[in-house]
């Protein structure tokens, strides 16, 4: 007879049919259908302004855009894939330039409290400025819309990366630094082998925020400049094609989500179980 049974478990309550994720997915689908049905009925019954297309029309046009993303019939008539590539290229180059400035500057300011405090006023004053305010200055200095777009994105990408890098570098766990000191590690070895890997999660989280903001800003910048997905949105408004605008909004959102996920993966990869 088994005497080591402490208590008989109560009869297993019936297992829930669905786990949390499955329930959430079902609720999401329900909300989406309710929204689309409301939209469809509202548009058909004249509840909205006549310019508002119906849900079914929008989905149909959405598929037309998605089905053929790379056509090119002149500057004002390009496939949505080509437009996205233009915007993504600008964001990529501008983001790389911005990060190439922000990361080294963040490391230097993180290591030296004096330089950090000396540079802080510049950061504090320039950081809250909307990146679009730089656009006229860019146009004046570069006289070229392409370069101005890169300039604006680069400026945008600097601040979160700079601030996070500085934070990460200056807040390395003192225990790691003590280990390096007791081993007699050189300053350079301490920076490259201890401080930078320890700050990597903060740096990547700064890059992730920067890229997110850069993607927000490129759309606005392109409305004022030309080319890319931002210009497409404005152009389709001038053509009064609301379905295209909604298509662009969805596509911009999906690409932004993808970029964010990509950096989320990178963040997990450099974190090694540390909180980040």
């Amino acid at each position, binding site marked *: 007879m088994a005497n080591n049974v402490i208590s008989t478990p109560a009869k297993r309550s019936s297992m829930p049919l669905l786990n949390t994720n499955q329930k959430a997915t079902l609720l999401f689908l329900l909300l989406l259908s309710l929204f689309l049905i409301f939209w469809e009925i509202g548009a058909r019954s004249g509840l909205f302004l006549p310019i508002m297309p119906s849900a079914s029309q929008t989905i149909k046009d959405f598929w037309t855009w998605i089905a053929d993303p790379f056509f090119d019939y002149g500057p004002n008539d390009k496939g949505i894939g080509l437009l996205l590539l233009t915007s993504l290229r600008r964001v990529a180059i501008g983001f790389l330039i911005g990060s190439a400035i922000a990361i080294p500057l963040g490391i230097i300011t993180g290591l030296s409290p004096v330089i950090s405090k000396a540079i802080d006023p510049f950061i504090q004053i320039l950081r809250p400025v909307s990146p679009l305010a730089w656009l006229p200055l860019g146009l004046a200095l570069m006289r070229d819309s392409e370069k101005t777009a890169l300039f604006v994105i680069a400026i945008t990408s600097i601040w979160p990366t700079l601030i996070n890098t500085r934070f990460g570098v200056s807040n390395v*766990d003192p*225990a*790691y630094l*003590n*280990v*390096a*000191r*007791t*081993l*007699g*590690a050189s300053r350079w*070895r301490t920076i490259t*082998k*201890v401080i930078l*890997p*320890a700050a*990597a999660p903060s740096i990547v989280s700064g890059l992730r925020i920067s890229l997110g903001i850069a993607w927000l800003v490129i759309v606005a910048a392109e409305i004022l400049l030309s080319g890319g997905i931002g210009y497409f949105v404005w152009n389709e408004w001038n053509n009064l094609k609301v379905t295209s605008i909604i298509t662009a909004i969805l596509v911009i959102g999906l690409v932004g989500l993808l970029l964010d996920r990509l950096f989320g993966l990178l963040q997990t990869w*450099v974190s*090694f*179980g*540390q909180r980040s």
Partner: protein
Amino acid sequence: MRTNTRPESTPSSMDTTAGSVSISNVTKVYFGRQTLADKLLKRTSPDFEALSAINLEIEHNTFVSIIGPSGCGKSTLLNIVAGLSKPTTGEVLVDGQRVTGPGPDRGVVFQSYALMPWMTVAENIQFAIETVYPTMPVAQQKEIMQEYINLVGLSGAERKHPHELSGGMKQRVGIARALAINPQILLMDEPFGALDALTRGFLQDEIERIWEQERKTVILITHSIEEALLLSDKIVMMTRGPAARIAKVLDVPFPRPRKREELDQYPQYHELKAEMERHLTAEARVVEEARVRASV
């Protein structure tokens, strides 16, 4: 930094007379902060004297435990020997040379393990070896790394990252890392403080076994009377802080190798234990009463 040339063959063939520590008149005062604003407002924050005139001679290859009530400055003293903290007055000599900063002649085991989370077990240990012996061929570095991983019983866990290890395994990596650079002196700051009782006991036995294999001068900070009695040749009892002093140094005469379950057969074990308990409970009582008074 002192020279630390690694012998060609095995670590046990090291110079057997190196590793004496002499602590003379060491005082540590944390000065109250006084900025310009404080001066203008005649605001003063009091200085805090953590250690008061500590004198201690430690011969080479002696295992010394420092035990005392919490907040008595044990860790401060260890940090001063490690060179991580500077004494306000007095000096620490290691083999007759004054300690001016940290160095690889003194290996440190930290209570918080302090393993680099982005490095595997092997990389953590190899980082230490490579830092201390930059000119050593990589093959030899790897050989030493493997030797110490085997010594602490972590074979098979070489490629794991610290977050995949239990607390006990992490501290074994910490011990292997401190030993792998072949220091004459091993400093351990409550190395098992964060571990559960069973793991703690197991690692104490491991330390006893390792120390039999690789004699070194060891300074161990601990809260545990049993731990001190099992491992030490000498036990330094400290008074409560502030201005902590050395109350008494006890000799632990039990023959080695020691076995935890055999220790209480020695009549002296009970005398020593009782003496330590008397001292520590008396000190702890005063500390607690002071805290109660301060909080009401």
